[in-house]
C-alpha cells in the first residue's frame, strides 16, 4: 500500500517536470494503479508536448526591425527629448505669460490710477489760457481775496504776494470737484505770462508725497498738506517757478 496519495497539484507538477525523484516515484506508483488518472495525465503531457512543438514553429516569425532594442532605445530617447522640449516650451510659455500678465496688470493699474493733479492742469488750461474769459472773481484787495478764498474752501487761506517774482494777482475762480469746491488763483507776469495756483480738498495720493508732472509745455508742481492738495501750474520754461512754489508752500 502506498501511504501517500498525490494531490492533483502534484500531478501537474509531474507533467511540468517539477518534482524531485521521491515525489516522482510516488506519482508514478499512483498512476500505475490508477488507469483513469494515468490516461488523463498522459493526455495532459501529450497536449503540453504538442503545444511546445507547435510553438517552436512560431519562433520562426519574420524579424521585425522596429523591435530591435537599439532602435527602440533611440526612439525612446527621441521621445524623451521631444517631451523635454515640450515641457520646456510649456514652462517658457507659462513663464512668459506670467511676466506679461504681471506687466499688463501693472499697466492697467497705472491706467486705472488717476494721474495726480490732472484737474489742476485742466483748470489752468480753461481759466488761465483762455484769455478773453474773465475770472469769476476779479482782482480784489488781498484782504478781500483772502476772505473769499477762506469762505469758498472752508479753510483759512492766505495768499503770498508774488510781486517779488514779477507776478500780480489777476483773479480767482471756483471749480467743483468730487471732494468739494476747489479754487484756481491766477497770477499774471509782466510779460503777460500766467501761472495758476490750484487748491482743492483731498488727501495725498497713496503712492506719492508730492512731485511734478509735465504736460507738453506745462509744468505742474504739487504737494499735500492737512487734507488739501496744492499745485502750481505754469510754463515749463519759467525760471522762477521753483522759487514761487517755495514761497507758496511757506505761506499757505
Amino acid at each position: 500500500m502506498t501511504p501517500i496519495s498525490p494531490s492533483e497539484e502534484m500531478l501537474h507538477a509531474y507533467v511540468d517536470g517539477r518534482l524531485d525523484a521521491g515525489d516522482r516515484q510516488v506519482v508514478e506508483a499512483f498512476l500505475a494503479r490508477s488507469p483513469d488518472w494515468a490516461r488523463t495525465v498522459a493526455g495532459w503531457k501529450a497536449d503540453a508536448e504538442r503545444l511546445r512543438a507547435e510553438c517552436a514553429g512560431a519562433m520562426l516569425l519574420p524579424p521585425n526591425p522596429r523591435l530591435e532594442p537599439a532602435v527602440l532605445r533611440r526612439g525612446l530617447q527621441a521621445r524623451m527629448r521631444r517631451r523635454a522640449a515640450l515641457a520646456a516650451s510649456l514652462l517658457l510659455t507659462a513663464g512668459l505669460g506670467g511676466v506679461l500678465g504681471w506687466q499688463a496688470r501693472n499697466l492697467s493699474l497705472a491706467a486705472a490710477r488717476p494721474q495726480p493733479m490732472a484737474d489742476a492742469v485742466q483748470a489752468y488750461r480753461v481759466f488761465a489760457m483762455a484769455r478773453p474769459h474773465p475770472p469769476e472773481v476779479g482782482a480784489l484787495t488781498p484782504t478781500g481775496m483772502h476772505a473769499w478764498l477762506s469762505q469758498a474752501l472752508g479753510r483759512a487761506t492766505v495768499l503770498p504776494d508774488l510781486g517779488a517774482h514779477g507776478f500780480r494777482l489777476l483773479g480767482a475762480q471756483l471749480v467743483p470737484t468730487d471732494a468739494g469746491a476747489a479754487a484756481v488763483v491766477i497770477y499774471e507776469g509782466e510779460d503777460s505770462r500766467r501761472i495758476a495756483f490750484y487748491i482743492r480738498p483731498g488727501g495725498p495720493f497713496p503712492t506719492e508725497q508730492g512731485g511734478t508732472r509735465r504736460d507738453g509745455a506745462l509744468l505742474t508742481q504739487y504737494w499735500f498738506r492737512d487734507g488739501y492738495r496744492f499745485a502750481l501750474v505754469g510754463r515749463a520754461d519759467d525760471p522762477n517757478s521753483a522759487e514761487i512754489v517755495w514761497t507758496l508752500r511757506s505761506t499757505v
Partner: protein
Amino acid sequence: MHEFDEHLRALLPRLRRFALQLTREPASADDLVQTCLERALSRWSSRQPDGDLRAWLFTILYRQFLAERRRARRFARLVELFTGAEAAEPSPEAGTMARSALDALARLPVEQRALLLLVGVEGLSYQEAAEALGVPVGTIMSRLSRARGALRRLTEGDIAPAALRVVP
C-alpha cells in the same frame, strides 16, 4: 546597457510568440512587444538586479495586454452604446474539434491561454507564473487544472475524472 540589449534580443522570439498567442494578430502582437520592450528599457535602471529577466518581461507584456484589452472593451461598450450594435465576442470551446494544439489553445479564455504558455511552453515556475499573471499560486494550480481539462476536451473530447479519488 548593451549587454541588456543582447538579453532582450535573445528573448525577443519568445516574447513575440507569447504576444501572438495572446492577441492572435501578428501586427498587434508586435505592437504589444514593442510597448513591453520600451517599458523594459526605460525601467531597467530601477529594476532589482536579482530575479529572472524573462519572467519580468512576460509580466510586463501580460499586464500591458490586459490594460489594452480593458481599453478596447471600454471602447467597444462605447460603440455599442452609440450604435446599438453588440460587439461580437468569440465563444471559447465552441464548434468542432480543434485541428491543432494551437487551434485548441486559441479557444481557451486568455487567462488559461497565458498560463499554459508560461508554464508549459516558456517553462516559468508556478511562482513566476503567479507573479506574471498577478494571482496567488493557489489560483495558478486550480486554473492550470481547468485549463488542461479544457484543452483535453478540445483535442480529444475526453472527459477527465471529476475529482481525485482517495486511494486506499
